[in-house]
């Protein structure tokens, strides 16, 4: 009888362990990008120029980090699934070049009605593709 109790306890512990591993590793949720603190605050133009001057160094510094960008947005582009704020600083084989910030679907509405003189853009930097610096999962954030 005691052996059965021990077996039940062991099985329960194993089951709980499997559940925890599943939930917190295999099935763990994605970060809430809107709530993440910015790792760097920089103007969009400085960011672009840093990547142009030193792609390897800038990639190591910024890729995979949350950035808060200041500066004047040049235009807003829309596709079927994306809303993108674009800072243009150059022109090349793909047309305008600069920093492109893709907004989270549920935060995109804010961009269209926002006062951009009092807001920065915060987003996850996925890198420089030899044309533009790309920020994703963007939201608007008030200036300090």
């Amino acid at each position, binding site marked *: 009888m005691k052996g059965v109790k021990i077996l039940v306890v062991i099985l329960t512990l194993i089951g709980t362990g499997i559940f925890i591993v599943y939930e917190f590793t295999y099935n763990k949720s994605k970060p809430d990008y809107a709530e993440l603190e910015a790792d760097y605050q920089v103007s969009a133009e400085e960011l672009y120029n840093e990547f142009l001057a030193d792609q390897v160094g800038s*990639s190591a510094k910024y890729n*995979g980090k949350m950035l808060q960008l200041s500066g004047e947005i040049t235009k807003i582009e829309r596709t079927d699934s994306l809303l993108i704020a674009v800072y243009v600083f150059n022109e090349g084989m793909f*047309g305008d070049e600069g920093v492109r910030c893709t907004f989270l679907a549920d935060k995109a509405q804010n961009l269209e009605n926002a006062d951009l003189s009092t807001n920065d853009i915060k987003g996850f930097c996925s890198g420089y593709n030899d044309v533009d610096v790309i920020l994703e999962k963007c939201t608007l954030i008030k200036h300090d």
Partner: protein
Amino acid sequence: MKSSKYLILFLTILLFSTVLNAQKYVTKTGHIKFFSTTPMENIEAHNRQVNSAFDLSNGNFVFKVLIKSFEFEKALMQEHFNENYMESDKFPNAMFSGKIENISDVDFDKNGDYSVDVKGNLTIHGVTKSVEQKGTFTVSGDGINANAVFKVKVADYDIKIAKAVIDNIAEEIEITVDAKLEKLK
């Protein structure tokens, strides 16, 4: 006299660049899907920020994609994809650079679907391989829709899969490309 020469030179350059641009189609919001299927599980990821350019004058065709922009259903898959397999800090981009070999078969003034033969170099994970694929160009008033579906062998690009998940990831990954190219203004 000297200034009029400069003016002619400037106008020639302007005209030349306008003609060149008129023959170029681009997008920065192309879509690439990555799909792996095994009896254990299906894994797919999407990247909707693909740069692509096509030059009508010579058939040159380019795709560029940031690895970190691929989005997976599960955070852990995305993490493993970037950190363990694609090493996206070390190799942030993948690209294709090549040519449409049968460009003369496509009538860019007539709407419709055209089968195209694409040949060029595909670079993934810092490894470049020569590839030849079939694709489709759909010509419409809005531009060109470029589509292709092809398979890539993981081992060809020196991507090492951990033994623990070897049954979960296919040896060949299916890549679907869908890019709506618009005339460069």
